[in-house]
């Protein structure tokens, strides 16, 4: 074997898998205010490309606020003000020239409660690709719908009811429908804000299984109150407390031997 190739292979295998390879999203001194309230304080974090990163922390710690900064969902809250920089692929997403609609196509979002459009299963998925002009023909559109449903692990269950209302599906199916809807516009990043907290354990397991598959193709950021879920699905974990990012690292490290006492106290159930 060529020496150079051999060396490259060696380098590739000696790299610590827990270290982020490429950075997808960077937060630099991010602050968020709701009116007078300083909700997010000087957050610096790097989110690696591909894989799952979990944000954990007690209610009101700022984790959801930070998540919503990543696709500028906070813009919709009039009292909310964000300072600092958030870079996606090294581009500042708060620059004035940015088209927020395009940004939100690249950065999809799934919410706590599944909210399908009051339309058919098919239309729920087809809506966004159509308005973004991603399909040139009806066949193109059908293909996007089927592929998205398959990727979200829902196709087999709904293939005979594509034209029934999306709201008629079970909670877990609706949530997977929302994931299919998010990936229909080929995003890079999927934000999930407690995607399983309204689901039963089996539906939760299906979503977790789905995340396991999706993490090879997408950068997934999940906010969860379930520490076990964060430990199961993520490769990196960040712990927020009182608006600051206390500690961030490989999920293994955070759950086995966190460095900060506050992290340890939170994950072991000593502080809420």
């Amino acid at each position: 074997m060529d020496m150079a190739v051999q060396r490259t292979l060696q380098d590739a295998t000696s790299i610590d898998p827990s270290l982020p390879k490429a950075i997808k999203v960077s937060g630099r001194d991010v602050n968020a205010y709701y009116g007078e309230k300083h909700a997010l304080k000087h957050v610096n974090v790097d989110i690696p490309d591909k894989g799952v990163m979990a944000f954990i922390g007690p209610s009101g710690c700022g984790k959801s606020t930070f998540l919503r900064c990543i696709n500028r969902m906070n813009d919709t809250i009039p009292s909310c003000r964000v300072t600092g920089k958030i870079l996606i692929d090294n581009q500042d997403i708060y620059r004035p020239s940015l088209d927020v609609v395009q940004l939100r196509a690249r950065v999809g979002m799934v919410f706590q409660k599944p909210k399908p459009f009051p339309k058919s299963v098919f239309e729920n998925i087809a809506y966004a690709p159509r308005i973004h002009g991603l399909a040139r023909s009806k066949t193109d559109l059908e293909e996007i719908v089927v592929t998205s449903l398959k990727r979200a692990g829902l196709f087999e269950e709904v293939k005979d009811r594509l034209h029934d209302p999306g709201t008629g599906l079970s909670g877990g199916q609706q949530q997977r429908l929302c994931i299919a809807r998010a990936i229909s516009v080929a995003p890079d990043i999927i934000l999930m804000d407690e995607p399983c907290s309204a689901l039963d354990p089996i539906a939760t397991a299906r979503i977790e299984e789905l995340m396991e598959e999706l993490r090879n193709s997408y950068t997934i950021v999940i906010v969860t109150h379930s520490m076990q879920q964060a430990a199961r699905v993520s490769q990196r974990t960040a712990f927020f407390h009182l608006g600051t990012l206390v500690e961030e690292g490989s999920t293994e490290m955070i759950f086995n031997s966190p460095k900060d006492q506050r992290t340890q106290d939170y994950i072991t159930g000593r502080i809420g």
Partner: protein
Amino acid sequence: MNEHIVKSFDQELLLLDKKIAQMGGLAERLLAQAFDSLEKRDPKLGESVVASDRAIDQLERELQEQTILMIARRQPVANDLRHIMTVLKIAGDLERTGDLAKNIAKRALAVSGENHPKSLMTGLKHMTELALRQLKDVLDAYAERDADKALGVWRHDEQIDAMYNSLFRELLTYMMEDPRNIGLCTHLLFGAKNIERIGDHTTNIAENVYYLVHGTTLADDRPKSDDTSSTLIRRE
């Protein structure tokens, strides 16, 4: 350390430590009595050792059950998980320590009729004393969560190994001198081997204490000097 929001979790963890302390105390007593029974050739004392080993076994079973239940109920992480896993492992090592001590006591029954020169017992006595001190230190290290103390125990085991080596040679010499010593010396040799094994279980506990405190395992190889498995004494 802060208390858990769920208080009963703290109580359960305390109970684990209480039982480990109990087991440790029993194991220490068992080893001391086992040696006494051998030295004094007292089969009665030997029998009582065999009986109290059952108490250690019972505690181990209780700890096993409790730790499994706690993992299922509380889904512990970080230091709590390390704590529970450490208890489970230390309980296993103490149970084995009890078994090995019991085995020494059983030999008291076997050698009670043998001719018994006192000098033969000196080496074994020193080994027992050292093993007892190590056991006590490691149990203190656990109770105090003192990783440095545990590390000290871990390093000290080499001394037990060294004593075992010299005792091994000494006993072989006695056997070669007079074949009538073979019966007794073989039992003493197994006794010494048991104590050497107890030393190894003690270092296991020390490693677990270190892991409990630091969250990382002891990386380097422990200094070992038991070379009896490759030793032969030839008649010159």
